[in-house]
């Protein structure tokens, strides 16, 4: 693991406007994450895990404070710059897989590379390599509707990893999976983290995931209440 911080969150506050008053989802969060970390944002529902993940991924803006991702302030990014950062450097894995239903497995994994305007030959090589990482080369032509939950999430992992991003943000990636599939997916991600030095950040309250983490940041009511390295 490299000690150079890839993500720095300073006194982050996020309020959501409600009908009568606002709801504070993040309340002065300060964290720093280094390149190659395999870390989890842990806490109960409503603790602010997903909100923090969305801000780090430039999908949302903080109300106050700042998140510096790869030396860029998320606050200062325009829509276009945020999209560019996501295209080039961030991979997302969602609880509900979010595969594009009309595309095949191959096309789903290929999609981020199309956005990066990579040529066809390189795309094909990269997609097949990513499918090999997750053990789904035999399902390249299948549609998402033909896959099991575990397979769908492995496709989502391949899609997040195919462009070799610096950061992968995974929001409850195992919530819809059984134990065997969860371990399979986590093992795959752990291997990719070792091999490619990609920074993985999970938002989770799943004990299975927590068992694989090397760092656990515990959130409660929008605050960091614990931050521990696990050896």
């Amino acid at each position: 693991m490299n000690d150079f911080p890839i993500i720095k969150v300073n006194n982050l506050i996020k309020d959501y406007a409600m009908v009568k008053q606002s709801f504070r989802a993040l309340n002065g969060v300060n964290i720093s994450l280094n390149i190659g970390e395999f870390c989890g944002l842990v806490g109960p529902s409503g603790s602010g895990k997903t909100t923090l993940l969305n801000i780090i991924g430039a999908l949302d803006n903080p109300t106050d404070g700042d998140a510096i991702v790869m030396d860029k302030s998320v606050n200062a990014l325009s829509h276009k710059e945020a999209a560019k950062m996501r295209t080039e450097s961030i991979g997302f894995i969602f609880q509900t897989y979010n595969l594009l239903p009309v595309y095949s497995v191959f096309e789903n994994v290929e999609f981020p590379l199309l956005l990066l305007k990579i040529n066809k030959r390189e795309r094909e090589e990269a997609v097949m390599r990513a499918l090999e990482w997750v053990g789904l080369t035999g399902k390249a032509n299948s549609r998402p509707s033909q896959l099991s939950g575990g397979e769908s999430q492995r496709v989502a992992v391949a899609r997040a990893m195919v462009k070799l991003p610096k950061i992968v943000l995974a929001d409850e990636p195992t919530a819809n999976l059984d134990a065997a599939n969860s371990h399979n997916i986590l093992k795959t991600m752990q291997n990719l983290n070792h091999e490619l030095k990609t920074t993985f950040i999970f938002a989770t309250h799943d004990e299975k995931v927590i068992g694989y983490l090397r760092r656990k940041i515990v959130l409660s009511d929008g605050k960091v209440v614990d931050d521990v390295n696990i050896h």
Partner: protein
Amino acid sequence: MLIIKLAFRNIIHSGLRTWLNVLVLSFAFVLIILIEGLYDGMSEQVKDAEIDSHVGGGQFWQKEYDPYDSFSLERSHSEIPAELKQEIERGNASAVFIVSASIFPRNLIQSVSLKGIDPDQKIVNLPVSILKKEIDTNVIPGIIGSRMAKSTGLQTGDYVSARWRNINGTFDAGDIKIVKVIDINLPSVDKGQIWIPLEKLRNMVQAPGQATVITLKKNIDRIPAVSRNWIFKDYNYLLKDLNDNINRKRLYSNFVFSLLLGMALLAVFDTQVLSIFRRRKEIGTLMALGMTRWSIIGLFTLEGCLLGILAFIAGTVYGYPILAYLAKVGLVLPRMIERSQFAILLTLYPKYGLRLYLITGMILCMSVIVVSFLPTRTITNLKPTDALKGKLS
């Protein structure tokens, strides 16, 4: 380039939803071309019929002649000038002498125009040669159109009493024998008119050598210069009423055009709205993967646009043989249309050109782009985090 590829993939992979839209749009496309073609064909047929059977290559009117004032008929005739006589002798023109009269069919009085025409003339396409049969007898032979026959109850072989004034203003009367009812369905040569031999009419009103209208041959090389008593009326003047009528009918055709297009576009609009609603999560995913909002708007708009292009292609593929067949065999209209004030032939031949096809196709595609774009504007307000949750901001 990327969004074109993606839009095409989405369209193809969307299956039934795509093809239903393409079907509706292409059906509207073909129907619009057919209806516009029918109007174009009808206008052309009607004009051709009017020129063939009535207007010829233009007409010289006696200066007092006013077709809308039957009282003017008493004074709207004079000797045919030498220049026009020459043209008649050369077979380039034909004289018509018009006299106001009353007939008494079914014991009722009805005003008519007696129109004297040379039974040997070849200038207008009217079957008047049959009038020659009775030319040397005391019988006054007459030809009427089917509308006239219907309104008077007269049939071939019937006699009808007629009363007219001679050139000195004295009333005279006689029986006209209907020798033929022509199924011409052209009001300008039918309604309130009886065609009789020119010389016979001149004798009846004691007006030798007189005429009211001289009709020139179609495509005549040169319009003869004539004295001030005779005024030349060209197509613009003679077909003005007809053109006005066609333009009024065109308004109706444009209404049908808009209605059909509107219905088809509503289907596309609905599909787009539904599509955005149904694909919110997909939109969120696309944003998370790095697509900008405007790229996503472009993608959705392009998907709609591709529907228009596919409909254009599909409409061409299945519509061309149908339209070509109809243009060849024509469309038989119901008999009731005869009642229209418009001269409509019973079989209409639609006429469509490349211009109609391309303009309709272009209007279709442009409209589809607009209605595809309108609902996608909501994407600009969509927050990626909400979209990922399947919410609309």
